């Protein structure tokens, strides 16, 4: 059973994916997220593409048209400098949030 993506986390996951793997197209990002999560995350196109638009409009990623190995046209997204900065901040925030949640969950009653 796939788990739903928590609001606001998809942006961070996309940024992180692109930062580690380098420029990737949308399909590759989706596949990567599924692999990493052991098929637990199902990335819906209805959320992936709007997220990419949002990130691109924020100036955090930049899309350029290129060719895949199989010579298909694809739009490759790469993280920009502003994107890296934003990722740092988002990561920080996520860690804090996750820490708080974790702490609450592990607290002895």
């Amino acid at each position, binding site marked *: 059973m796939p788990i739903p993506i928590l609001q606001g986390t998809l942006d961070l996951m996309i940024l992180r994916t692109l930062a580690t793997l380098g420029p990737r*197209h*949308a*399909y590759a990002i*989706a596949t990567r997220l599924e692999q990493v999560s052991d098929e637990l995350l199902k990335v*819906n*196109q*209805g*959320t992936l*593409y*709007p*997220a990419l*638009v*949002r990130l*691109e*409009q*924020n*100036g*955090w990623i930049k899309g350029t048209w290129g060719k*895949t190995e*199989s010579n*298909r*046209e*694809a*739009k490759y997204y790469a993280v920009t400098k*502003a994107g890296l900065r*934003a990722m740092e901040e988002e990561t920080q925030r996520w860690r804090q949030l996750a820490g708080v949640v974790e702490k609450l969950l592990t607290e002895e009653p």
Partner: protein
Amino acid sequence: MRALLMRTIAKLRNLWLSHRADDELEREIALHVALLEEEYQRRGLSEEAARTAARRALGGIEQARQAHRDQRSILWLEQTRQDLRHACRTFARNPGFAMLAVVTLALGIGVNTTLFTAYDAVALKPLPVADAARVVRMERWFVHGWLGDMQYGFSWPEYLYCREHQGVFSDVVAASSPVRVLAVVSGSGGQTQPKTLEGQLVSGNYFRSFGVDAGLGRTFGPDEDRAPGADPVVVLSYAFWQREFHGDSHVIGKLVKLNGAPYSVIGVAPQEFTGTSLLPRVPDFWAPASMQAQLVRGQDWLHQPADYRFQILARLKPEVGLKRAEAETAALIRQFSASYVTREPTRTVTLEHTAFFGNTEDPRFEASVAALMLIVAMVLFVACANVANMLLARGAVRQREISVRLALGASRSRVIRQLITESVLLSLMGGVAGLALSVGATRLLRVAVTQMLTAQLGSDFVFSLNLNPDARVLAYALVLSVVAGVVFGLSPALQFSKPELATSIRDESTSFGHRLRRSRLRSLLIGGQVAISMLLLTCSGLLVRGLMKSQNADPGFDTRQVFLLLGDYGDNAATSLARFHRLFDRLQDVSEVASVSYGRGPMMGTWAPPMRIGEPGSAEGVEQGKTLASYASRDYLKTLGIALLRGRDFTRQETTSGAQVAIVSEAAARRFWPGEDALGKHFQLDLKFTGKLTDFEVVGIAQDVRFTTLTRIDPAHVYLAPDPAQTYPILINVGANQQAALPAVWKAVNQVDADLLPDLSLWNVETMLVHPQRTLARVMAIFAVLLALLALSLAGVGIYGVMAYVVSQRTQEIGIRMALGARASDVLRSVALRGLTPVAAGMAIGLACGAAASAVLHSTLSFAGSADFLYGVRFYDPWTFAGISCFLVVVSLLASLVPAVRAVRVDPMIALRYE
């Protein structure tokens, strides 16, 4: 923060590059599908199965596309754009409807904008001077409460005192009331016939303070108003320069002869400077106030503290507020007026923001503007109701489209928004057309008014009002359009978007019950339209009846042969009286004229002093507005051709000594002494509104005439022997031989007092005083008829449209009835009756309102001096009311029968298969 900014910019860009973003997304999704397919094939699925699986895995592509669209641009803007595009497509598919709606609205908005343009020009537009917002005009308030343009009059000594002692203004400027001079202008035409020009005497700082630079040459220097008679220079107005000198730039330095003395032209005012006069006329020239004695002979305006000839305009210092300046000015004028004695003490002084007309804050002016605005707003309402009705009638077509949209998941608010967008777009188009219409109409109006006034005044008249639309007019038209769009669009939008899917997706015409509620709204709109048309028609009907009467209303005395000689004899009481009597005595000897006398001019306004009937002594029972009064010399009635029915005329001795005797009109005699002989009776008048009564004895009874206004026979009129301390218009009856008499009159004036010539004007009572009243009646009637016809034709179109729709909805039912053997006449009657119910209700309401308006109009007639624009038409004039009702019934019958007849003619078989 930066991210947000970048995103907004990107979104805005996407508004225009939407198709490119769509295209890119398309390509990305294509790749996505292809790669998924490959993946599935690798896992062992067949090519066919892989494709299906890939598509399924991807989820709804359309939804993804929409989410993408929503994300990448500003949602509401994008939606509005869609709505607009959709609206344009809808209109393009149905251009007839769109055209009709736009024309309808254009008429409504055009009429409203035209009126507002006029109001704007008169009361809101600032004077054509620099930083007009800081320029104020002084207005004095008399203890006796007199209102009018004289409130803007100040004397030159007052002006000087204010200018010297004030600390709140950066500049104080004076400009006189118009002065008329006889001029010889040797323009390029080279003609030397003297003409009468109108100019203004101004303080030397006039142009400088207003920040008005000469269009040509220079303006006055600040010292050019100091030494009396020392500065024979003039600045010409642009219009005058164009007219007389044909724009010749060599005019500077030329001499013009004003009242016989040469003045050199030092400059020409710029085209946009049309003067600061309270009258809507551009002066021909401006001259320094120091030249007053030369330009206005025999008078001294510069030294009399109570000779209110100048208006004072002042520019507030930047840091000074209006209140403080007002307090200081009032104190200064009060201080100054303590130094002299006047009959008309000033209570206080206020400062008024400058506009072309004075007294625009007068409640009477505002009330009449509001009344006019209300009338034209009603026309716009009729137009709106019409378009709303058209929208409702189109509901059958739209309903299915809208139901489908609702069923597919559009929210109700979204649908309403789209419908409102459509109607606002319609009304904006109507607004643009209406604005164009109003610009045209205003131009026409300006030409008409200028021509009328030129003909009336008999001289070159340049209208100073700037009627070009400004930002205020544009904003007004815009607001009006948007409001109109929402007003007529809202109720149909609410109706259509009611989520009653099941009934409306089915063909609407089968659901009989569903239709009822909407038809009630339609009936309401029709009723309202008819009521307003009825009201406007009634008013215009009454005015037209008045017009018919006005054209042959007989004043009852001789107007064609009587001329009024009006003169300004100067303000020194003794010399002016001597000049007046010298002239009058000389004119009596002119053998070419039939009769000469003096007194109050007919048709020249009202004078209705408070009156008390009975023997003198008591102060009880004084009433306002009971009677009209006039001063009249011996032979006055003879000159005018008013018959003396009983008693005698004043004697020569009574005329010159100010005897307390009076001749009363027949109506006055009947009214004040019913059943008695009025001769020898006494009454008292409060001549100067001071509470002091003067007793008069009745010595004669004169025939009733329309003396004060052509609109009605004087309800009561008393002619009093003249006050010997005053000068009056001289009445000259030229008899049959006008050609010989007028030159003889001018010759006599020239002999006895040539200096008077520029200050005299000769008015023919018929052409100058009676004719304008007939013209006014005609103009008012035409205006009212135009408005009423506009409202009526709009209402007619509305009734026709709705009836046509209702009947078309009932085609099936009518077909069944006809097939079952109903007679065509019965069907027609039932259809027509149903259509006429709201019409009848609307007519009743309209009639009631019309009667109320008419009653209000008539209630003003209790004052003896008020004009009766209906020329004695009774307010329940049966002809008007019955005629208008018949007319309206015929129009609405036609509008409802035409579609009904068409429906009856339809072959029943076709009607039955209509489903």
